[in-house]
């Protein structure tokens, strides 16, 4: 263990651990912008600078390993002044048209600007420099006016997703993030996983499906309905509607990772074709024989009617032709509990082992 002090407080670090990580573990906050614990350190924004006794100038705590006996100061007047300068500079190139105002997403730039008393109205750019919503990707909203060049998207795409869509184009004040060689995201082989969105500290990259949807009233952690990986995420709910899906960093299988279906494939839930009422064929209500071919029109009925009809038909088939004349297909999309009751239904209620699902398909 490495022993050193931060603001006079004794702190321990593992060998090789950075000042920032050791500080975080000790519950000491150092402001950051380009740092994210899941991504390789970049050391670009210089928000995390600290003073170290004996060092020639301030050091970026996200890239500097703690060493034995080090004396670190995180909030000296000089450091604070330096951070305010960085924030002013970033704000001067930051323009927000307000498309995603009040969506509840934390904006790390504005958070620190406020913290250090750098006035948004005074310093933020008044004119856009780039078109808003500049990429046709249906899921990812790109607004380079809010980009602070932290490169978290570049690293997220490479280090989380294993795609290499984003790059930094270096042209001084006009530096910006580009997909591929300046093509669209999809042309640059984007898989629409939304990792870059999830790691963006300002909302320069955001969820296109949720623009203007407002903040969630609640977030409910649940498990994805698509593949067998079993990712977890938070459904953001407002007015009984899912307004967006956000990564939940403590998701046990996937952490912040999600794929396009998990993050953006949720709108089927509210699709207009959802079945909302029980339906039975007209011939059943009229007590007639089933017509050949087309089964005839649907009639909307109450639950009791539908359930009674169903039960009567199943009981009749069972009692007349034997238990094996009834089959049950349960569902690989449904829960364990739902599958258990289907299994109990087939075996206990009907008395058949003819139950299956599409495991094989």
């Amino acid at each position, binding site marked *: 263990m490495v022993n050193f002090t931060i603001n006079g407080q004794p702190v321990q670090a593992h060998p090789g651990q950075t000042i920032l990580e050791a500080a975080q573990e000790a519950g000491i906050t150092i402001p950051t912008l380009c740092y994210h614990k899941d991504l390789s350190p970049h050391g670009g924004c210089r928000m995390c600078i600290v003073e170290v006794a004996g060092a020639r100038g301030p050091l970026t705590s996200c890239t500097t390993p703690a060493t034995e006996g080090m004396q670190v100061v995180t909030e000296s007047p000089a450091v604070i002044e330096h951070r305010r300068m960085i924030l002013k500079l970033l704000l001067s190139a930051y323009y927000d048209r307000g498309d995603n105002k009040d969506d509840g997403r934390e904006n790390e730039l504005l958070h620190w600007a406020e913290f250090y008393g750098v006035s948004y109205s005074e310093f933020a750019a008044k004119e856009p420099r780039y078109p808003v919503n500049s990429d046709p990707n249906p899921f990812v909203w790109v607004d380079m006016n809010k980009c602070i060049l932290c490169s978290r998207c570049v690293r997220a795409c490479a280090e989380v997703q294993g795609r290499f869509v984003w790059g930094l184009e270096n042209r001084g004040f006009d530096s910006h993030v580009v997909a591929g060689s300046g093509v669209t995201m999809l042309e640059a082989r984007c898989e629409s996983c939304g990792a870059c969105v999830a790691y963006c500290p300002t909302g320069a990259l955001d969820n296109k499906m949720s623009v203007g949807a407002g903040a969630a009233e609640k977030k409910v952690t649940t498990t994805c309905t698509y593949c*067998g990986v079993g990712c977890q995420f938070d459904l953001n709910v407002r007015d009984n509607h899912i307004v967006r899906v956000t990564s939940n960093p403590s998701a046990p299988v996937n952490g912040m990772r999600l794929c396009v279906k998990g993050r953006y494939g949720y709108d089927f839930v509210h699709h207009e074709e959802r079945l909302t009422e029980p339906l039975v064929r007209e011939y059943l209500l009229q007590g007639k024989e089933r017509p050949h071919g087309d089964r005839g029109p649907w009639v909307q009925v109450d639950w009791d009617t539908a359930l009674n009809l169903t039960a009567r038909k199943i009981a009749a088939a069972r009692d007349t032709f034997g238990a094996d004349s009834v089959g049950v297909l349960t569902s690989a999309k449904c*829960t*364990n509990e739902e599958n258990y009751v289907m*299994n109990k239904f087939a075996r206990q209620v009907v008395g058949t082992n003819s139950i299956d699902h*599409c495991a094989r398909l």
Partner: protein
Amino acid sequence: MTNPMDDVAAHSQAMLVIGSNTTEQHPVFGTMLRQAVLKRHAKLIVADPRKIDLTEFATLHLRLKPGTDIALLNGLMYIILEKGWEDKAYIAERTENFDEFKANIMNYPPDAVSETTGIPVEQLYEAAEILATTKPASIMWAMGITQHTVGVQNVMTCANFQMLLGNMGVPGGGVNPLRGQNNVQGACDMGGLPNFYPAYQWVNQEPNQKKFEAAWGVSLPANIGMTVTEMMPAAANGKLKALYILGENPIMSDPDTNHIRHALDTLDFMVLQEIFPSETAEYADVLLPGVSFAEKEGTFTNTERRVQRVHQAIQPIGNARQDWEITQEIARRVIELGSRKPSDAPHAAWNFTSPADIMAEINALAPSYAGISYERLDRGERLHWPVKDAEHGGTPILHVGKFARGLGKFAATVHVPPVEMPDNDYPMLLSTGRVLYHWHGGEMTRRAEGLMEVYGQSLVELNPDDARRLGVNGNKRVRVASRRGVIEAEAWVTDRVPPGMVYANFHFPEVNANQLTIAALDPIAKIPEYKICAVKVELVK
């Protein structure tokens, strides 16, 4: 999976991915495999006829001919034995039937295997060396392995491979089938199979039958029931009269669609519990609105046997009801109306008041789920079954120290060519699967706007050589015909597929590849041979 995904991602030094397009079908695990290569420099070998995305990250791409997986693996094991790379101590201590297995492997010398699989001999040696000398190594596969008439043999062959190298029951090793749908593992675990009660208790073994008879208060059948692939013919010939379907769409997902339509049409009665009027709803007599994952409480079990909570985020849409409640309501009514009356028994009644209540009955009757409770899950415990009791911490890695059955049994497996191979009339080979932007029968993803924007129509992958031969140029519409049906779709001209092969998906009803597929079944697992059938392709003029 015998090993969890994070274990493979963190500890496998070599990985063989065979018959799994992981980055499209299990995307998040796919990203973990990519990162294992990028960050840890783990060695990745991909065995796949198609040049799938993962091949870009692979040390070696074995572009085998479709349906030759057993020949390939047996051929690699031949080389391993020839070089003396097998884990002799492991084989002696932990396994049995090695001699019979070895005698069989001797039928797979490299020259012959190269001929069968189309893989150059040097590549066979290279692959064998990487896998045998880089420890631990894991094998991953998906439907590419199981959806063949020899699917079960394929799986046993993977197990042989890992036992030979001592890679079973160790971190970073194992045999790791990737389960397709979100809860296909759980549906199997919960007795959604014709041969098993919950937790794989055989229905035809008397003690199990007695146990469930005592629990449920009824006499139970001793015969194994019908699989879905057997139910369809039974419906067509009038033996099966009534069908209760929960959230499945056999019209889209089952092979030989035309045959399925006929079967469902012949049924006396079908009740479908669904969230959408699916293609199968056309054949239903009663349609009951259930709920989507966002509207329910419960658990799913993922591909690594990890049980996880599903939490209700929104109220059911319209008058839809909880699926378990619907089943319970039907059960109560059938018992009341019919002649089969359960007697008094601990779990005879249908008076569940919540999913947690159902989980309590599962705890009592399914030993591998005995210790799984909502309380533990909500506390954040990581529970991979078997979880033997409320104190047991679960089993992330299977077969540690000892196989479930005692000694691991080597099996002699034999390469059998696919049932239907290209011939003069149907000269090309069709393989089917999924794409990143869609899911299964597409019931959900076709109703997700953005996904449709990126991938809005079915594309048939066609090699540039074949495209040239067929005259596919500006006009890309092709007609793909098999002995069972015809589809028309846009061709995606790409060298992802080798010459002579086309690849199609089953996400779109207008262009459902299952119009073409063959209902030839693996004799044990009854899995249809989706991966291979013979077709002819022509340009639509």
